[in-house]
């Protein structure tokens, strides 16, 4: 194989969904032995391109070669035979089967006497696959569902690495991984590169891409905008390439300071997973919640949102007692919520945009609380959507067809549609690209300017520091300390989360 022959080349790739172009002449060329980043905003066409390579989606037109030979990938089997492996966020796993069974799914299990599954060697082989990633804390006989999301991702990755393939395509593999786990993954990816295979790496985390990848292809609006070595481009240039304009700030400036009036206060709030927590928010204030995952952030949000049984404590909203018995009561009182998992918790994927937005506000978005007024709803949704730069065919388009960032905007539209007094956000920009992130932060700013208060739970530390006025640190179901966000550095925040002294505890 001559070095000039690309491992994979896909050119003139076009694909339209129901007349709306997702790809219009994109191209991607991956050389052997490189880690190649595929970048672009949500909706730029990355997922469509990957799905075409995986044989899940049929392109309208495409010229694809592997090792210089013209191929057509018309099924996932074809992609597999060509040596392409895909590690995707929503990859098929069976949580009720063991780790080892999941790793060997679709492969031949080791047999005894040609008939019975040799469980011992199955587990041993799985252990070996995990070891390759330096993982020794996962028991292969454990049910996959018992593992943390990060560990599940590691299992999927080790399964894909099991046999030697030519190209590994990874879509946001580190989204649920800790720093250490990510580092281990990167080590393996570099090994893969050294062995002459290649990696196509998709991520919104620019730092990772700059550190890990050799080359990058940037997609925008379904076209390949640029492709080249990463060694001679800056972080900011890369962002401008992706969003098609110069970036000044990652976070929109606050236009108003928090006011003096208290909007929300909780005192001694406790549930099954939450030790007594007290906090208060003023009008226009954003309170960030930091902490290691599982420190009680989710429980706090659920308690405020009426989705957990309080064992103690009281809350007030705008001075009046607030004791929601259900999320329905919380919405009624003017508390809105953007959940952590937009697909599982935030959206009804197979319903139109406008139905998703008005779902929490049907009482007001109907006649007499009973009779639907779809035309009015659509106008309302279209207005809200335009305001947050939602990219969609129209308010009647199914949420399913939107890109991740635009789906998240629909979740936000639902949250702000009732002019909430208190907005609860959990990981509001996870898996959302730079441009849509800025739009989402602008929505938050707009809301606080009107006097609403916001509680922001996030594991994205720059986001916490950039958007919050104050940051409360949670550990083991308690708020251990609260600090001003202005001037806070990331490492200080990390130390606070781990409970290490920094000398700046407020």
């Amino acid at each position, binding site marked *: 194989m001559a070095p000039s022959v690309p491992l994979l080349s896909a050119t003139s790739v076009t694909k339209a969904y129901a007349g709306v172009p997702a790809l219009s002449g994109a191209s991607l060329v991956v050389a052997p032995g490189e880690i190649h980043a595929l970048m672009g905003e949500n909706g730029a066409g990355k997922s469509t391109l990957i799905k075409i390579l995986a044989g*899940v989606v049929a392109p309208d037109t495409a010229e694809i070669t592997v090792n210089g030979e013209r191929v057509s990938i018309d099924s996932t089997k074809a992609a597999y035979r060509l040596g392409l492996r895909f590690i995707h966020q929503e990859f098929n796993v069976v949580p009720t089967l063991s780790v080892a069974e999941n790793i060997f799914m679709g492969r031949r299990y080791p047999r005894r006497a040609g008939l019975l599954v040799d469980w011992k060697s199955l587990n041993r082989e799985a252990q070996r696959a995990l070891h390759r990633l330096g993982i020794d804390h996962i028991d292969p006989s454990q049910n996959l569902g018992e593992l943390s999301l990060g560990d599940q991702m590691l299992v999927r990755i080790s399964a894909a690495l099991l046999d030697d393939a030519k190209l590994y395509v990874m879509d946001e593999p580190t989204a649920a991984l800790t720093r250490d786990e990510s580092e281990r993954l990167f080590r393996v990816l570099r090994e893969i590169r050294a062995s002459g295979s290649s990696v196509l790496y998709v991520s919104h985390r620019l730092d990772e891409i700059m550190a890990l990848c050799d080359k990058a292809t940037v997609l925008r609006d379904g076209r390949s905008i640029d492709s080249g070595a990463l060694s001679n481009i800056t972080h900011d240039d890369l962002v401008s390439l992706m969003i098609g304009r110069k970036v000044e700030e990652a976070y929109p400036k606050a236009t108003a300071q928090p006011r003096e009036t208290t909007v929300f206060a909780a005192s001694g709030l406790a549930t099954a997973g939450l030790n007594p927590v007290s906090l208060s928010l003023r009008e226009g204030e954003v309170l960030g919640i930091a902490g290691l995952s599982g420190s009680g952030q989710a429980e706090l949000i659920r308690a405020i949102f009426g989705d957990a049984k309080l064992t103690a404590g009281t809350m007030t909203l705008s001075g009046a007692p607030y004791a929601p018995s*259900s999320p*329905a009561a919380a919405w009624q009182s003017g508390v809105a919520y953007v959940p952590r998992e937009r697909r*599982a918790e*935030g959206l009804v994927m197979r*319903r139109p945009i406008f*139905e998703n937005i008005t*779902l929490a506000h049907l009482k007001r978005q109907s006649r007499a609380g009973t009779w*639907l007024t779809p035309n009015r709803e659509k106008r309302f949704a279209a207005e809200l959507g335009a305001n947050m730069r939602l990219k969609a065919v129209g308010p009647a388009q199914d949420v399913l067809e939107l890109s991740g960032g635009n789906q998240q905007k629909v979740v936000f539209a639902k949250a702000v549609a009732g002019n909430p007094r208190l907005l609860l956000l959990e990981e509001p920009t996870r898996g959302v690209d730079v441009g849509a992130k800025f739009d989402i932060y602008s929505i938050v700013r707009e809301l606080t300017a009107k006097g609403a208060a916001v509680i922001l739970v996030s594991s994205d530390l720059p986001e916490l520091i950039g958007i919050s006025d104050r940051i409360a640190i949670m550990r083991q179901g308690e708020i251990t300390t609260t600090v001003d966000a202005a001037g806070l550095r990331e490492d200080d925040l990390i130390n606070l989360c781990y409970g290490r002294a920094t000398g700046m505890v407020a």
Partner: protein
Amino acid sequence: MQLFIRRYGTLIGFVAILIFFSVMLPGTFPTARNWLNITQQTSMLMVVAAGMTIVMVMGDFDLSVGSAASLAGIVAALMMAAGQPIWAAVAVALLVGLLGGAFNGAMVSLVGILPFIATLATMTMFSGIAFVVSGGKTISGRAIPEDFGNFARGGIPLGEWGGVAISLPNLSIIAIVVVLAVWVLLEQTTYGRRLYAIGGNMEAAHLSGIAVKRLRLIAFSLTGLAAAAGGLMYASRVASANPVQGSGLMLNAIAAVFLGTTMSRHGEPRILATVVGVIVLGVLDNGLTQMSVDSYVRQVLVGALILLAVAASSVTQGRR
């Protein structure tokens, strides 16, 4: 093309069936009288399937509708046999259906039992109760007031057609009214919108402030009510009641809703699609009977048709 088949395959198949029977039975099939007959024959199934659509919109099932229909018929017949007025017997029978449905709803939404298991259990329970209260006997003859049986035979005269007096049967009118009511409920009210949201994503619906438990309970109650109505219509049609007469309704109702789902965008149940599903089953039954096809062969054909329709609708969905 694939999309076209997926979306309209069932309708095209339906039209093909109509053409087939019209050619084979030119004298009897494509006549107003026969069609009015079909609407009457399918009216019970129509009512029960309309009720079934409500729970299936949420992604649930109700396997107990057949037993509930039998039980309602038995309750009404027993009361009439005991000399109670017809209106009271009908009201109590409907109430029994509503409460039975509410019991299903409570098991599913409050206790959290899977609908399949909960309604499988109540299916046997309702059937057992019907046997116990009736002593396992068919209640008929003079025990049933003539007016009750006459209702099903009556209708609104529509004039003459081809020299024969035809009328719109009362049972068909009830079916139309129930379908309209369910259509309004599912397509025009916030309640229906919320049910579809529950069917699409229960957790998202809950977090969007939808009282999932209460709505599910109401939905099952309505399905029970419709089942009881279907049972009463059946009892009126045959002027008698026995503890198993509704048993065939459940599978046919689910089959009709499933046939309907092959016509909707994302495979969700729609009431008007259910209507088409019921009519497809009714036309097949009617036409094949007229062609003197053996009833067991008929069963095979109907089953095959359902498989074909669902298979055609998953032509494109399979590749995902």
